[in-house]
């Protein structure tokens, strides 16, 4: 659920929406009213009372209040395709973490270890960004739990009543997302095959699987951009374009590494 900070933001967006309607409606494509705003406003009303108390404890400048209100309203412009993309990509990235974490123990070469470390760093951060994106929009947030080669996705929060409570996904049994059906996802058997490999055999398998995995992510970005009304959210556009650009670059590098392995 929304944190107290978020509630505070929400409150300000309400007053601003009341007092300064011109700023909200006359400002930008990313701040116009959408199908979601009604749902969003509704959500605000439920918390108005308790939030008001928090507000009196804070002395924020007018500008800062306006800033947080705008940040909040900029987060209302999304469609279901955006939510699905973020939700799926979290699981997709999580599998890349599982694969990459094998590198040090499985005798990967220095260059593959460096690549794996970069993937862990980059995709780990991106998972955090995507979770925050969903949380900010009151959508169910996939929490990632990794136990060795096992990926568990635990859906948290969200305003939709159907999404409340615990949904324990277990590599493919997830209530909402069959993440092994996503493009580029390895099967559990392939993961085990990778985990059993060592040295140059590991390098080769890792690069081959990861190229496939990255190609899947790029396919997902292309699908996203082909959906009506998708990718208008600035944070999502930047993230998806970034995933596209960086993974395309990494695929290139991995082909080169594979070709150089002989």
């Amino acid at each position, binding site marked *: 659920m929304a*944190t107290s*900070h978020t509630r505070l933001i929400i409150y300000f967006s309400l007053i601003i929406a009341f007092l300064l309607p011109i*700023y909200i409606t*006359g*400002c*930008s*494509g*990313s*701040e*116009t009213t959408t199908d979601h705003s009604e749902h969003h406003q509704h959500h605000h009303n439920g918390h108005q009372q308790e939030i008001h108390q928090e507000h009196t404890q804070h002395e924020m400048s007018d500008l*800062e209040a*306006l*800033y*947080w*209100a*705008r*940040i909040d*309203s900029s987060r209302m*412009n999304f469609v279901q395709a955006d939510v699905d993309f973020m939700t799926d990509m979290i699981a997709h990235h999580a599998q890349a973490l599982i694969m990459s974490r094998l590198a040090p123990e499985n005798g990967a070469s220095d260059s593959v270890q*460096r690549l794996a470390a*970069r993937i862990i*760093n*980059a995709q780990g*951060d*991106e998972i*955090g*960004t995507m979770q*925050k994106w969903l949380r900010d929009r009151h959508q169910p947030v996939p929490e990632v739990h990794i136990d060795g080669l096992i990926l568990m996705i635990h859906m948290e929060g969200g305003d939709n009543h159907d999404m409340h409570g615990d949904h324990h996904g277990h590599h493919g049994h997830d209530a909402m997302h069959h993440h092994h059906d996503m493009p580029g996802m390895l099967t559990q058997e392939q993961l085990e095959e990778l985990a059993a490999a060592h040295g140059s055999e590991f390098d*080769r398998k890792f690069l081959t699987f990861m190229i496939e995995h990255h*190609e899947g992510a790029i396919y997902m*970005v292309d699908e996203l951009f*082909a*959906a*009506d*009304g*998708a*990718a*208008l959210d*600035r*944070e999502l*556009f*930047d*993230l998806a*374009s*970034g995933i*596209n*650009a*960086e993974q*395309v*670059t*990494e*695929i*290139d*590098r991995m*082909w*080169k590494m*594979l*070709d150089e*392995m*002989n």
Partner: protein
Amino acid sequence: MNYTVTAKFAVLFLLLGAYLFSASVQAQQSSTAESALKPITEIAQPDPDPRIGLRAGVFDAEETIWNLRMLSTAPPPPDFIGSWGTDLAFKDNYAIQGNYNGFVIWDISNPENPSVAVDFLCPASQSDVSVYGDLLFVSGEGLGGRLDCGTEGVRETVSPDRLRGIRIFDISDIYEPEYIANVQTCRGSHTHSVLVDPNDDENVYVYVSGSAPVRPEEELPGCSDAFPDEDPNSAFFRIEVIQVPLANPEQAAIVSSPRIFDGLEAPPVHGLAPEEQAIVDRAAEAGRFIANYRNAQRIVNDGIVNRFLAQLVEERGGEGEPTAADSTLLRERMDDMYLDLMEERLAVRGRSVDLGPNQCHDITLYPEIGLAGGACEGYGLLIDISDPINPVRIDAVADSNFAYWHSATFNNDGTTVLFTDEWGGGTQPKCRETDPYEWGANAIYSIVDGKMEFQSYFKMPAPQTSTENCVAHNGSMIPIPGRDIMVQSWYQGGINVFDFTDPANPIEIAFHDRGPLSDDRLEIGGSWSIYWYNGLLINSEIVRGLDIFELLPSEFITENEIAASNTVRMDYFNPQGQPMFTWPASFPLVKAYADQLERDREFDMQSLQLLRTGLERAELTNGNEQARILTELAVEMESRATGSANSAKVLKIAETLRELAAG
């Protein structure tokens, strides 16, 4: 509201310190023959680093500053609060700041109190801006940009209302920008660069780089996301060159789409070098599989061989291990199967290792030296732009520490090029203690005979929190004569100034940083870009508006060097079109060179004292008497030049003195 009492005191202390320091320099110079200026490698850096642990806030974050003075900070105009500020361009006394909501034009004639001249609503990401003459160019890449500048966005996948490409405004009256034209491109414009061809005064050229997916052909005819082997009009693997006729800018149109990446990863079409051929021959003798592909032989790796063998077993309806007959068959069919495999790779999404990168993020044009630096996916490119419509790649480097080549900056004489790695796209916190120094940093190369040679990495060294997006971003050269000094943005890592005169040993010499926007959550913010413009360091803050700084004299830079840099004047400036700085003859220029010779231990103190005393005398006179003193000094310097470890700089002093004498 903006900088704290502590910061103000820090500035006062620095000013006082700088004053005492320069006074002591003068005292020492007149009394002893000891050098008073330390080589910059020997000067201590602040310890502990004051950028660590700054208090969070949006417009009231704690700040720290070192060797800079903040002249002003101004929040965005109301319609732009909460939207993201982006890149800057400059014309006369105006700074034009792009924004996801449009652009803001600031009047900076009083840098201590800049004012908003224009706030123009016209949403599009990223709204990167450039100026030339009366024209303003603005990039549009995001899916919500509209031809009519409307704020309602575009929701349909195919729409006649969408703008992705370049918007052109007439700013002959800068207070009333007029939207006169646009040029649509297949991938939109993430960034662009304006090229002024010294041999063409009727046109300017805009190089467009786009990194977002290709738009549907139904929306913009001719856009193809097939790969070039299939469709020569593919939008991949190319940049767009827009020609803008200055007499009729509304007729601006794409004139060429050079494929500057072609063949980057392909095997050499000229055939293998003898050593390479020898390796292939030895592998063939040892029984390895060889494929003929694109006019060259390649050793096929075992994984591919096994895959092919399995395919052959399957084709004959067999099972289990391949036989000797399968191996023989593979040797016969290898070339075809290998070609199929390569095309399969291509078919995945219209690109592959064999075609190299398919777009550039940013291209920095440096027409005076006929070169451009392209930051293109996994490569840094050196591009010959002497023919602006037909740029030619002359060198390319890759670096396994670099995720994503973002932008390029040349030093003034074009002997060094610096590339930035915008790892994480600028929205991720890549300056934490745990993030390696080489990642999300700058890589510095020497340019030797048209080839790039790696020298070093440089990254803003103060660890930032995990709620601060931080990575190398935009910056520009500061025209300190005789040195390579750059100012750069690091998003919420703040801004810094560093010296890379020795490209193998870059040194940080100034900085400013704020605490995070929030302690609890990562909100995108910080410095998008900072550039030197006519003595000012102008910072586009994504959330907080516009900051203006100036350099303070310090142990790293003397007052004379700053005064010399301030003799450089520009009428306009586009960061992606790098101008060559030239310094008019002036007393500060001579003194700056003298300070450098002293700091670098390249000239004896007695000669330097003679020079400084001579200059002092000359400055007290004028006319013929001054010319006589300056000419005598020039003669003296010329005769002493051979005794210097940097005789070229001493001769530059002599030359400047003669120019001054000539008036």
